[in-house]
């Protein structure tokens, strides 16, 4: 009886389309997309900041200068070792107001950037250490100073080595960015919470949110694979 099966199938689709949860999701889909966009925006800027900080902190941790080493160790220990939400609070309410008239969005990005910088520092440090000492010596023997050797020879190679853990970190950061909802930044997870609180449609709402995260993280992972392949030289 293929026909009855067909109508049965339609029946299920119908049931879904008229279920309250489905309506909640369709009503809020654009709203969620806006949140996803916010999430991507915050994460991208935080990554940019985290990469710069992580690069300097990672290099500093390799320094023979005790003070520079100590400062970067303290930075890494603190931002890797305390809960992100505490860091967000500390920066938003405590530190940043002393510096400028801080708003939630910029504070969120600064907090996430500082946090990811600590993880990225350790990743980059491991990558730099993985590069054969002979590379630095070859560069120095050509007359490059230490900075030039770092920029032209060591870092490009280190960067390639650390793509997989960097991708891990970017994905973790994307999801950690949901914590900035504490200070009113309306990113994806936050919007999910709000809609859930008003509708109690947990499965539909969080299912949709989860799928959106999945799409974004998979995109990041694929970009990572692509970069890795593009940098392959063999």
């Amino acid at each position: 009886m293929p026909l009855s099966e067909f109508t049965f199938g339609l029946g299920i689709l119908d049931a879904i389309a008229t279920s309250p949860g489905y309506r909640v999701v369709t009503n809020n889909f654009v709203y969620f997309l806006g949140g996803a966009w916010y999430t991507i925006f915050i994460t991208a800027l935080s990554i940019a900041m985290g990469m710069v900080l992580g690069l300097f902190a990672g290099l500093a941790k390799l320094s023979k200068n005790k003070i520079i080493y100590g400062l970067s160790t303290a930075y890494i220990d603190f931002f890797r070792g305390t809960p992100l939400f505490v860091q967000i609070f500390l920066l938003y309410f405590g530190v940043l107001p002393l510096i400028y008239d801080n708003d939630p969005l910029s504070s969120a990005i600064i907090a996430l950037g500082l946090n990811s910088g600590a993880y990225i520092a350790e990743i980059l440090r491991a990558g730099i250490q993985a590069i054969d000492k002979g590379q630095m010596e070859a560069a120095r023997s050509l007359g490059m100073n230490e900075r030039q050797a770092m920029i032209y020879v060591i870092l490009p190679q280190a960067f390639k080595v650390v793509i997989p853990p960097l991708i891990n970190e970017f994905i973790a950061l994307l999801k950690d960015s949901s914590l900035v909802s504490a200070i009113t930044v309306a990113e994806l997870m936050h919007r999910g919470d709000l809609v859930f609180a008003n509708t109690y449609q947990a499965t539909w709402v969080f299912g949709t949110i989860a799928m959106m995260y999945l799409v974004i993280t998979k995109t990041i992972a694929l970009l990572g694979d692509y970069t890795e392949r593009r940098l392959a030289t063999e």
Partner: protein
Amino acid sequence: GGQTDNSEQPDVATDVKKLLVGTNATFPPFEMQEDSELTGFDMDLIRAIGEVQGYEVEIQHMDFKALVPSVQNGKIDAAIAGMSITPERLESVDFTEAYFDAGLIVAVHKDNQDIQGTDDLKGKKLAAQNGTIGAAYCDEVKKADAATETRIFDDIGLAFMELEKGGVDAVVNDHPVTAYYLKTATDTSIKMVGDIFSAEDQYGIAVKKGNTELLNALNEGLIKIKENGTYDEIYSKWF
């Protein structure tokens, strides 16, 4: 954030000052978000107060945890989020006069015949929302009978889900919130039992400690809207 500095000039709305208010819109029907708009009893109330006191009210949603530090640091002027007034909290912030007597109610699974009211809660698994008087009440029950298990959720929605799942025997929560849930949730298998109790569950608006100026202005506004009937209008709109 905006701040009140001059002495109040009641009923004159020409001198518009900004009033930044924080809330946590996950507590219907007091505060919630519908179609990207913050609505609910508390929202209407604070807007009404703003109107009579000459404030341009701007409301921000944030994490419940962030409300108090925001008030203390001047990120916002006041917080209204179904916050119950307790002596401990008064060490950190000042509260206006109570604007709502919530009262608690017990909710159980439809099939549950054991629990008929507060007297039957001892030794049971109880759930409540963090920071509510319901949670404090659960702790009291536990103190009286150590066999009682209390489960404190950040989100009242999850507490209700736990009750539907059968993970707890009862949810003790502010009556209006539970009533709203029963009205909204589809296919719910939860019912309310017993009477509303615990009259000391009163909500206040929090302001920075020592900000008596704003406190007085808000209290004044509260009295005004009670007198001019606005409060009753809002009340009947939501309950």
